[in-house]
């Protein structure tokens, strides 16, 4: 198969947040990361964690549909830690890098299917997830699946 690319255009004017143009859509992204809970925009780091989680959730939906397993609801709760966010701020004397070091994710799945079947599609999804497979070599990914009724 020929290589396929996904193309986006990102524009930022003066102090305005960046606007991402993709296909027929656009969305705005704030600064790379932010410590102020009142900050008005969604940061790039939050988008990245959101994208990773959506990849997992959406992947589970896709695999379960193929296997004809009914999942009523999927919910992911995620938190990410950087190796050292202070290096991003440029604090003198801080070492390390500001990259993602650790991501904790709990994924709750509501289904009346057998738990072993759900765990099987969970494994398949992780193998096929583009973002999980991208991050896995460099970021510690602690993912937990919890099946509820």
């Amino acid at each position: 198969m020929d290589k396929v690319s996904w193309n986006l255009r990102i524009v930022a004017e003066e102090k305005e947040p960046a606007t991402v143009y993709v296909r027929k859509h656009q969305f705005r992204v704030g600064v790379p990361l932010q410590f102020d809970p009142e900050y008005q925009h969604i940061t790039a780091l939050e988008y990245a964690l959101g994208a990773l989680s959506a990849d997992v959730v959406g992947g589970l939906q896709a695999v379960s549909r193929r296997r004809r397993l009914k999942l009523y609801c999927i919910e992911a709760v995620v938190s990410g830690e950087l190796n050292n966010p202070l290096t991003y701020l440029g604090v003198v004397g801080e070492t390390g890098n500001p990259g993602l070091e650790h991501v904790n994710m709990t994924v709750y799945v509501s289904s009346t299917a057998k738990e072993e079947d759900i765990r099987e599609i969970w494994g398949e999804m992780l193998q096929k997830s583009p973002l999980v497979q991208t991050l896995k070599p460099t970021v510690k990914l602690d993912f937990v699946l919890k099946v509820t009724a």
Partner: protein
Amino acid sequence: MSLLPLFPVTTVGSWPRPPELLRAQRLRQKGEMGEEEFNKLADDAVLKVLRLQDEAGVDMVTDGEQRRDNFYSFVATKMEGIKLMTLAEMLDLVEDKVSFERILRTLDVPSYSISNATCIGKVKRARPLAVQELKFVRQHTHKPVKVTLPGPYLMTRSMYLPSVSSKVYRTKEDLGEDVIVTLREEIYELMEQGADFIQFDEPVLTELVFTQGQTRTFMCAALAARKDPAEELEFAVSLINRVVDGFHRSRLGMHICRGNWSQDEATLLRGSYHPLLKYLERMKVQQLVLEYATERAGDILHFEGKELGLGVVNPRTENIESVEEIKQSIERALRIYPPDKVWLNPDCGFSSFSNRPVNSSDIAFRKLKNIVAAAHSLRT
């Protein structure tokens, strides 16, 4: 009601549901299972819970709340003006999303797993809330029966979501008027059908006094803006007293705990009932069903004119309290209560939320059995 022995043993209400019933609850909620098919499974589950209580030797039984999805939101399908909303749906509507998220993380639950009965229209009892449950139990036991209902303060507070409820009721106090009418209709029918004990569950009362400046950890308390705790407690007293006014045929009680959603005791509220004492004493119910099996509850207090439903086992631990430990708890209560005023029960239900039991049926049974053994030992 048949004559009860000294130290009557009962439960606080809920019992773990079998997996097939949990599955059926989910299918029924999704409209994939009819009422008749669901009731057949639920009937079997209730019969099993009755049998276990009988084998354990309890003196007053409940149906284990087997038909309910949780201890308070089950009313949604039986009332007009109420919509059962998952917390996932409510995330869009609550003002303080950050606090809401913090609570969900503390509870370690998905937002889809807890549903809240939310007021979206004029509230009215469309059909009985618990009368059918009582009728079924009555047909299958000769023992006295306890029926649990969400208390009027819990109902009013948890149902009132300002962004949607204020279109119908200007304030939650206005909504409270119709909650009173609903519960009075229910009590009347339950008494007609011979309920021996009606217990109102009011877990949010502890939330009012124990969370000054702390994270709110009880779900329903996040839903309505909080006023001065003293004002809220006065409101709670007035609601319950108007609900029970004039009803004398059955024993009326109120259960107040500090949360029952997790086996991690550290996440649950802590503190003595002392700040509630002057309010609880004014509530016109005969019995206060209180948790005293953990040190989080502080010393046993004397509530003037009330019976004590003494919590003697922790429903959330796998450790089975010994008969001797339970007897010691009872003896502590007997220092301030006469024997005929002390009833025995676990601290709370074993599965307040159907999909989140805090223990297995087997452990619940063994705990009950030891309470019964302790009661027998002290009666002789």
